[in-house]
C-alpha cells in the first residue's frame, strides 16, 4: 500500500473540500471492505483517503409519507434490521444474500453501490477494461457480461443491492463539487458503462459524493430479489434479478424488472415488463417474462449458461414478489 494523506471530516462540506477533481488522486473511505484490498494490491493508489464515516448527516434511516431516506454510510446490517424498510423485502433479501456478517456489519449502502467490479483482469492490474475488452473476450469470461458488452467494458457490475433499489424507483442525491451544489437523479442513471480507462462505473465526478438514497413508498408494491448463487457464502452471485410489481386485482398493472451481474451496469429489462403487464403471475407468465428478459442477450465465448441463469433469476424474482413458490432453491 502506498503512503497517503488521511482525513476524517465531520461535515459534508469538509469532505468536498478535500476531494480532488483529478481521477485517482483521492478516494472516499466508508466501510473499506473493497478499497483497502485494492490499495494493498496497488490497484488503487490514492494520494489522499477521505474517511466519510464521521459525518452524522450521511448516516441513518428516516421515513415519512413521501418514502424512506437512507444515508450513504448507513451500514448494511442496520438496513437489514430497519422496521422502516419492512415494505421493501427485496432490499433485505439482497443484503441477506451477502451472507457474511462481517461484510454486512462493515459495509455501507454507498460503498455497496460504488464498489469496484470483481473482474479478475481488473483485480490483477490490467485496468478496468483489460486491454479494451480484448483480454476478457479472448480469455476466461465465464462470470462476465451477457448484456451491454459490445464495447470495451465486459465486466459485470458488482452491486447486489442496486437491482432491488432501481426496481423500487430509488433516487440518489449527489453533493458537490461546490459546497452547495447538489443533484438528485434516478439510481438507474447513476450507473454508466465506461468507454475508456479514465471512467468509472458511475457518473460521480472524482470530487463529488453520493450522500443519500431516496425510496418512494412501497406499501402497494410487491417486490422481491433473487440471486443465483453457487454456494451459501458471501461469493458474488452468478446472476440476479429484482422485481417490483403493482397489481390491479390479480393482474399486473405495472412492473419494474432489473437484472444484476449480467452487464457493466444493473440492467433494466423492458421486454420482461412488456410480457408481464396485463397478465396474472404464475409459473408460465414468470417464465415468459424471463425468456423475454434474455431475448437480446449477447453472451461471450464461455458464459452462455448465464443467459439461462438470468432467465431463471427473473422468473423467480417475479414469483417471489407475487408470494409464489419458485420451484427451486
Amino acid at each position, binding site marked *: 500500500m502506498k503512503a497517503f494523506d488521511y482525513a476524517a471530516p465531520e461535515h459534508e462540506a469538509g469532505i468536498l473540500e478535500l476531494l480532488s477533481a483529478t481521477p485517482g488522486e483521492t478516494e472516499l473511505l466508508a466501510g473499506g471492505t473493497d478499497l483497502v484490498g485494492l490499495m494493498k494490491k496497488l490497484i488503487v493508489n490514492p494520494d489522499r483517503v477521505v474517511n466519510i464515516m464521521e459525518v452524522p448527516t450521511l448516516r441513518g434511516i428516516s421515513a415519512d409519507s413521501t418514502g424512506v431516506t437512507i444515508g450513504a454510510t448507513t451500514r448494511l446490517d442496520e438496513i437489514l434490521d430497519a422496521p422502516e424498510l419492512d415494505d421493501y423485502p427485496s432490499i433485505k433479501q439482497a443484503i441477506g444474500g451477502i*451472507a457474511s456478517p462481517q461484510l454486512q456489519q462493515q459495509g455501507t449502502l454507498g460503498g455497496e453501490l460504488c464498489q469496484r467490479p470483481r473482474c479478475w483482469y481488473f483485480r490483477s492490474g490490467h485496468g478496468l477494461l483489460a486491454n479494451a475488452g480484448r483480454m476478457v473476450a479472448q480469455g476466461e469470461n465465464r462470470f462476465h457480461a451477457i448484456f451491454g458488452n459490445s464495447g470495451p467494458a465486459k465486466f459485470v457490475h458488482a452491486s447486489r443491492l442496486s437491482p432491488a433499489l432501481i426496481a423500487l424507483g430509488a433516487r440518489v442525491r449527489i453533493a458537490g463539487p461546490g459546497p452547495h451544489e447538489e443533484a438528485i437523479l434516478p439510481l438507474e442513471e447513476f450507473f454508466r458503462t465506461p468507454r475508456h480507462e479514465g471512467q468509472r462505473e458511475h457518473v460521480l465526478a472524482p470530487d463529488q459524493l453520493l450522500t443519500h438514497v431516496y425510496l418512494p413508498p412501497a406499501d402497494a408494491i410487491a417486490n422481491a430479489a433473487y440471486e443465483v448463487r*453457487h454456494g*451459501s*457464502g458471501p461469493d458474488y452471485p452468478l446472476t440476479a434479478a429484482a422485481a417490483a410489481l403493482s397489481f390491479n386485482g390479480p393482474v399486473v398493472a405495472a412492473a419494474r424488472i432489473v437484472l444484476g451481474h449480467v452487464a457493466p451496469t444493473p440492467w433494466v429489462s423492458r421486454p420482461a415488463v412488456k410480457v408481464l403487464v396485463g397478465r396474472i403471475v404464475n409459473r408460465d407468465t414468470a417464465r415468459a417474462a424471463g425468456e423475454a428478459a434474455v431475448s437480446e442477450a449477447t453472451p461471450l465465448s464461455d458464459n452462455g449458461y448465464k443467459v439461462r441463469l438470468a432467465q431463471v433469476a427473473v422468473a423467480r424474482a417475479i414469483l417471489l414478489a407475487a408470494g409464489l413458490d419458485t420451484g*427451486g*432453491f
Partner: protein
Amino acid sequence: MAEYSWPAQGSTALVGKEQDRTDGIEKATGTAKYAYDQVFDKMLFAKLLGCPHAHCRVKSIDVKAAEKVPGVVHVAVMKKWDDGKGKEIVPEVRWQGDHLACVAAESEAAAALGVAAIKVEYEELDVFVKEEDLEAAKEAGRTNEGRPDVQMEAEPDENVDESEFADQEFDRLFKEAAVVVEGDYGIHSITHMCLEPHGSTLYWDDDKLIVWHSTQMVSGVGGNFAEILGITAGDVEIHCDYVGGGFGSKFQANAWGGVAAEISKATGRPVKMMLDRDLELKIAGSRPSGFIKVKVGADSEGVVTVWDSVHWGTAGANGGGVDKGNIPYVFNPPNRRRKQIGIVTNTGPEQAWRAPHHPQACAITQTAYDDIAAKLGISSYDVFLRNLASVAPKKQGVSMAETYREQMEIAARLIDWKAKWHPHGKGDADGSIVTGLGMALHTWGGGGHNSKCLLKVHPDGGVETFLGSQDIGTGTRTAIGMVVAETFGLPLSAVKVNIGSSTYPVSGPSGGSTTIGGVSESNRRAAQDALEKLAGLVADKLKVDAANLVAKDGRIQEKDNADNGMSWKDACRLLGMETLEVTGEFKRGPKESPLSSIQVGGVQMAEVAVDRETGVVRMEKFVAVQDMGLVINPKTAKSQMYGAVIMGIAYALFEERIMDAKTGAFLNCELTDYRLPRLGDIGEIVVHLHEPESEYNRGVVGLGEPPVISPGAAISNAVANALGVRVPVLPLTPKRVLEALEKGGNA
C-alpha cells in the same frame, strides 16, 4: 525389554475414549503462536517478486529503484545468468509467480512498494495451460506419452505380436460384454489453500540459523535449509509448534526460505518471509488434474470384465499427472489397458495433496463404474458390491473385500440407501429440484513412520516426552499424551508432551497418514519400557512378582489385589535422585509390529439435491465409514474425517484453478475468487469409525488422507443419479451442470 502391545479392546482408560485437544484452548483463543505469528526485535518483512509471465526468459533484473524505496533495507536477486560453471545463460521462467527477487523492508507496505519498483526485462515465450484439452496439447507439442500398460486373462502365443493380440482380444471382450459404457470424465487442478501460507520467521544466532517454519517435517526440513545455504543441518534449528494447514505441501525450506535466511545473514536482522495469498496459490503447490477417455465392458450383473482407457493431465512444467497404477481405482478388472499422457503446462508445480493422486483416480474411474449401473438400470450399490471380487490386496489379517462389504452395509444403513435409492434420473421431482444418491470407496496405506522419542519420568512423578514431531491438525500432542498416560495409568493432564523442535529426537514427517502411527509406536514402546523398570523397583519394595503389577488409576499395584501397591508418586520416588530416561524407537519395515499396521479401506455415500433450472448442487447428507485400525482418540479422528469430507465437497463442487489460456495467468488466485464451500454448503455429515475387534487388534494405522479420496466420485455419482445425466468434469459448478443437461450423456 517389554513385549509391546496394546491393552485388549474395551479395557482402556483413555485410549479409544473421546478427549478434547490438549492445545485446543490455545488454538481457539489465538494464543497458539504459528510461524507467521513470531515477532522478533528489528525484524524485517520480506516479499517476493513473482514473475508476471507464465513462460519467458528473464534478460535482466534491475533493483536500483527498489533499493531507494523508503524503508527498503535489502534486495536479493534470485535468478542467475550463469550456470555455475562460468557459462552464460538466460534464466527461463515456466510458470507465473516464479520467484525473481526478494525485498526486505521495515514494513510489509515498504516491501510491497520495493517489489513494485523492480524493473525486469523479459522475453516472452509460448504459453500452454489448457490441461483438459488433449488435442490442443498434442498440437502444441506439450505431451509426454507413456506406453500402454496391458493386462489380460488370455495370453498370446509365442509367435503372435502382443499389441495386435491385445487389440483383437479387447475387441472380442467388448463384443461379448453385456453392457459397454464409453465416457469422458475429469477433475481440474486445485491448490492446497493452506490458511497459513508457506514461509518462516528466522534469525541467526552467531552461525546458527533459528527458523520458525510452517512445516510438516520438523525433524528433517533443517537439512533442506542447510543444503540451500551450504551449511550443515547441525547449524539449523527448526521450531514449529503449530501449522496452519499443509496437506502435503509443506516439507521443504523452499527457495523463499533460503533467500530469507541469506537476507537475515546479510543484514544481521531477523526476517519474516510468508507468501502473500496470490503467490501461495501460484507457486507453493498444486494438485494435478486428471482427464480420461474410458471404454468399459461388464456382464449383465454389472461386473466389469474389460477396461480400456487413456488419461491425461498435468502436474505443471514437467508434465506428470495421475499415476496410471491407480486406474481404475481400487478395482482390478481382469482385462485392462491403461495409457497415461502427461501434459507439460506453464502452471505452478505439483506438491503432494492429501492422498496424492487417489482422489483424482477415484473421481475419474468410479464414475465410470457408476455409469454401468445407470446403463443397466440397477443400483450403484449392487454394482460396487459385485465388483468387490476384483479388489486385490488383503490387508494384514483382514480381507479388503470383506472390509468394504461391512462398511457398505453400515454406510447404506446410515444414509438409508434402500429407502431413498431410485434408478438414475427416475426420482420424483419437486419443482425444479431432484435428489440422488451416490457412493465410492477408497484405500490407503498409512501405518507408522520412523519415530524416536525421549521419555522422562522424574522422581517427583512428573512425566514428559520429547520428539521432533509436529501437529498438522491430527491432534498429535493429544494422541501422544493419551498413549503415555494410558500406559502409566495416569490422567492425560499428567503428561507433558514436547514436540515442534528439531532439538528433540528425530521423528518422521507428517505425510502418508503415518504420524499417529509413528508417534504412538515410539511413545508406547518408551512408556512400556519405563513402566517395566518402575514395576521392577516397586516389586522389589513390595516383595511381589513384577509381572503381576499393573499401572492403573494413578497407582502401581497388583493385578488381582489393588490394595497391594503404591501411588505413582511413591513409585517414582524409588528412582532416588535420578530421572528415568527411556528412548522409544520405531523403524518402519517389512516386519509386522504389534502396535501398528498398514492399509485401510473406506466407503462413502452422498445424498444431493440439484436445482435443474440453475444447475446448483446442494449437499443434503454425506456418510463416511472408515477403518483405521486402533483408534487412539475418536474425537480428533472424527474431526479429521469431517475435515476431509468438507475438503472433498470443496473439490467436488467448488474448487478449481482457473488459468488464462492466452497469458497463463492464474486468474482466481485470491480467496475472493477461489471458491470454497461455506458452512451452509456442506449439509449433514455423518462419520463412522469402523473399529471391530479385528481392526482394533491391528494396532494404529492412521487416517489423515483416506477419507478425502471418495467424495468427488460419490458426489458426482449422486448428481448423476439425481439428473440421469453425467456431469463429466469436477467441480460440478452450475455452469457444468447446465451444459451437461443441455448436452445429455451417460448416466
